[in-house]
């Protein structure tokens, strides 16, 4: 009889994600992941193959499940303009934000993207998804009259993506909050309420 599985895939991916997030891909060993999960290395290898496969799986899960705080609420928000601003507000947070940074995708992008096509593809499609979420929210805000007409939705969505990524790096670097606030102010300015 096969031994009963004592962990779920999702649980394992979430725990592995914590480590990759904190330390990056190269600096995290399979032994550390096994210890962190309280499992043997062999059961992790049996389930996920190797470290790279496990990493790509965590990245996919991060892309589909977690994302940035506030981003998943964008699609259904009644007031999309406020929801967009909230995504940036949440990134800055209230000070108790974990210092290891917000975005696994960005951390990974930085470490692996020049050399790893599979990772590049996952990250790139996540960036495209983010851009599309921003664009749909801007379009809805415009059609609901929450944002003045005539806003260039494609350019605005792309700029929001870039501002968001830039903001994540600035947060991680520990720059003053007044500098971070400027980005949020900018987002509000880019989404002008009608007169």
């Amino acid at each position, binding site marked *: 009889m096969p031994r009963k599985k004592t962990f779920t895939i999702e649980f394992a991916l979430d725990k592995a994600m914590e480590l990759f997030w904190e330390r990056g891909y190269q600096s995290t060993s399979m032994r550390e992941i096994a210890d962190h999960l309280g499992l043997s290395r062999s059961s992790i290898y049996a389930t996920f193959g190797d470290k790279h496969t496990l990493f790509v799986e965590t990245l996919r899960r991060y892309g589909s499940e977690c994302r940035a705080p506030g981003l998943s609420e964008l699609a259904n928000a009644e007031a999309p303009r406020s929801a967009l601003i909230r995504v940036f507000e949440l990134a800055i947070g209230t000070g108790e934000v974990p210092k290891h940074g917000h975005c696994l995708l960005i951390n990974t992008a*930085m470490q692996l993207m*020049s050399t790893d096509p599979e990772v590049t593809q996952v990250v790139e499609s996540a960036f495209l998804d983010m851009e599309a979420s921003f664009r749909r929210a801007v379009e809805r805000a415009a059609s609901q009259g929450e944002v003045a007409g005539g806003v260039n939705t494609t350019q605005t969505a792309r700029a929001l993506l*870039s501002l968001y*990524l830039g903001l994540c790096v600035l947060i991680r670097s*520990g720059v003053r909050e007044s500098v971070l606030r400027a980005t949020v102010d*900018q987002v509000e300015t880019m989404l002008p309420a009608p007169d």
Partner: protein
Amino acid sequence: MPRKKQFEIDDALTKAMREFWGRGYHPTSMQDLVDCMGIGRGSIYDTFGSKRGLFLRTLDHYLKIYLATFQETLAKSTSPADSIMNVFEGAIAALVVEGSRDGCFIINTAVELAAHDDEVAEVVTAMFRQTEQAFRALIEQGQEEGEVPRTVDSVLTARSLLSLYIGLRILTRSNPDVSVLQAIKNQAGDLIS
């Protein structure tokens, strides 16, 4: 001979910088550095103290190159606003013309180390502050020359340009459509017009 030695150190630093830039700090081993710098482990320790000491020197080395490139960009620009546009264009050209997806060494370092290493965080934030101040000076100069409207808040806009610029450099590390990058540059232009 002292002069020759300085040249050799700069050359070795450039090689080490490329290695750290491409791979990150932690994944680069002492052996990688020995291989790429073409000097012995003992000489590296004698000259730079440690891997971390060498890394901090390469950051400093990058800063000099970065500032020189920035000055070159300003020198070939026709106006303050044009300078800001050319800074963004330069980031796009690194990918499109040179095919480089290495991004910016400082930004890569910020992501890898700044949260864990206060000394590195200080170097990185100082660098960001310098970039912010350069944007601010250009905006104010543009306002003096009547090119940038007085209604543009130079402090807030310089900070927004910094976020936008860092985001752009990150995006160039993935494999984005050029139109995405151009839209970000256009947005930078809208902020100062």
